[in-house]
């Protein structure tokens, strides 16, 4: 069986994000980028399925500028077999990403598609669901446990009320949640090997997908700075302050 795993290059989780002076977006120039943590979990799950003998081939796909290749290399170092880079320089909306992934899937014919549940830069949590719908495939989102037996997929999902177990037939789209697994550190030999693995390149035009967005980002601002609290010396002072702020 074959899996397609989507990986997104985002601003590193540990970086303190700053808004650009003109309010058009966040500062990415010279800022540390790395693979979206949920995508890492997706890659790890695919590699584990391969180690169990369930998957024969893992293709890592990323959509983005030239540097997205580094993110694909990371997936290769973790154990993916080959990569696919869809080159596009601007920010894309989830719907466009879903359409592009569908085009790639139609070429590669995977038995499952693994994605992170959401990206930490936009927190959209839409791509997996949209992709499944476009493909006409079942979806198992927020997966915290994945079991494959033949063409039967059983997934435990994290939902508000607790855990939900659902079953479906492959092919399917799975989106990964935090507790699914802990991604491995790529070992040195694998990092070296990854440099030699193949990454194919393509772009939206070649895939025949219109990625123009119907959304326009109007303004990006930082959240208001947190005001320091005040310490009061007595209950009377507290009452006076509450009245002053029209809170009572």
């Amino acid at each position, binding site marked *: 069986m074959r899996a397609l795993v989507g990986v997104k290059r985002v601003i*590193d*989780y*540990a*970086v*303190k994000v700053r808004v650009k002076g003109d309010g058009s977006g966040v500062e990415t120039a*010279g*800022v*540390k980028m*790395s*693979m979206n*943590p949920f995508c*890492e979990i997706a890659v790890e799950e695919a590699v584990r399925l391969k180690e169990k003998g369930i998957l024969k081939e893992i293709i890592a796909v990323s959509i983005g500028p030239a540097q997205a290749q*580094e993110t694909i290399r*990371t997936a290769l*170092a973790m154990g993916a077999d080959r990569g696919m880079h869809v080159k596009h320089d601007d920010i894309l909306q989830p719907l466009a990403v879903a359409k592009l992934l569908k085009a790639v899937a139609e070429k590669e014919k995977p038995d499952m598609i693994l994605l992170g549940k959401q990206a930490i830069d936009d927190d959209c949590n839409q791509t997996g669901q949209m992709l499944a719908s476009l493909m006409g495939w079942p979806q198992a989102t927020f997966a915290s446990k994945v079991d494959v037996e033949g063409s039967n997929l059983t997934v435990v999902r994290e939902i508000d009320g607790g855990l939900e177990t659902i079953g479906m037939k492959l092919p399917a789209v799975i989106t990964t949640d935090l507790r699914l697994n802990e991604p491995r*550190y*790529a*070992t*040195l*030999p694998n*990092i*070296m090997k990854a*440099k030699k693995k193949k990454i194919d390149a393509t772009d939206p035009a070649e895939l025949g997908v219109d990625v123009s967005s119907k959304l326009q980002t109007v303004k990006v601002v930082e959240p208001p700075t947190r005001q320091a609290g005040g310490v009061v010396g007595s209950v009377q002072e507290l009452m006076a302050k509450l009245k002053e702020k029209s809170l009572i």
Partner: protein
Amino acid sequence: MMARREIFRGFTNMLRGVRMHSGGIARKQFAKIEESDISTFRKLLGEKSVITNDDSLEFHNNDWMKQYRGNSKVVLKPKSTEEVSSILKHCNARKLAVVPQGGNTGLVGGSVPVFDEVVLSLSSMNKVLSLDEYSGVVECEAGCILQNLEEHLAKHGFVVPLDLGSRGSCQLGGNVSTNAGGLRLIRFGSLRASVLGIEAVMADGTVLDSLKTLRKDNTGYDIKQLFIVPRKLESVHLAMLGCNNFQQVLEAVAAAKFKLAEIVSAIEFFDQQCSDLVVRNLPGMSHVLETSSPFWVLVETTGSEDSHDSDKLYNFLNYCMEKQVVEGGTVAEGGTQMRKLWGMRENIPMALLKEEEVFKYDLSVPTSEMYNLVEIVRERLKERYPQAGVFGYGHLGDGNLHLNVTCPTADKEAVESILEPFVYEWTAEKRGSISAEHGIGQMKISKLYLSKPPELIALMRQIKGVFDPNGILNPYKVLLDE
């Protein structure tokens, strides 16, 4: 009905042997604190800056290692140079001994009182005063916490040319006065080199402004310092390499310095005993790779051009694999993995603290012989004291070994007699330093002669006398009495 009240002490440490009045030293003829002194301090600093209650005094009287316990009755927290000056003027006139204290993170008992010395804490003078973004010069107060300075500078695209595990608590004044070493000495050099000037208050209260040649050995009190701070560079990579023997470790370091050259920002090592201890003693820590390795080497690079640094790192790793210098390892992908890998090294002191007794040695020795001492000590202890643990880690790139030995309390004296003076004498024989970066404090006073000739020690004493004629600043430390 009587309600039971649990009285919580700040901490209790009945297991660890606590040294008081180190090595049988007698209290010198300093004056004793009287009520009149306390009210003078209150008048000079205000009520809130004079601390006399037992619970608050606990922190200031005990060192981080919980090995030394002083008996100060008053802690002062001045907020300005003038306040520091007024305190010292009074103490000097009264012949009251004073211990200047920063973050109290020192490992040799240098930052806590031995008897009833007044603690002069710089914690309230914690501001970053100015940053000149063109020259990269920052001015800050001595009580500024290292991590706070790091965060302030990061906002403007600069870094502090110093980094250590205690960054969340240690203060710049302490760092400068002890010429702190740390993780990035290999990149930025000795801290001294980055200090452009300091404003200090002398033992008698005189304020010296921006004296550039003041010796930093607790003879005066640093209040403000001017640093040159380098730009923050965004391309950071971290590799952890596994080596089977120390010879491979040495070759990995040589390769790193040769292949990575100017982008190296840290080279650290630790042995398998250290990584096993960290995983065993600290919840939430786990081995990074499935295969264990007798030695781990952390190599960090920092540069301004990511593609350049990635290529260099790849070439270095390729070289190491081809020449069989390393057996395995990993490269951190992203900030989270980087923090976890650093955690394996930086948490070693915390893991050691959880053992019953720990002997810490901070030695500068020729790099090629660094691990020999660890193996010799292990050999010496293994038959009669199999429960003792011997750990080696440190700033490999700078030739600085941290040798640590743990043992059950019952074996403490016996193990100590096997370790000392052997470890110090071995180091002296190799013409190394018995205190590479931790300093002398109380702990290593009697060992100073092993790394400095008596003539030089005499000179140090004379210099101290010039700056502090009454010897009120941090007595009983560094220099033995004649």
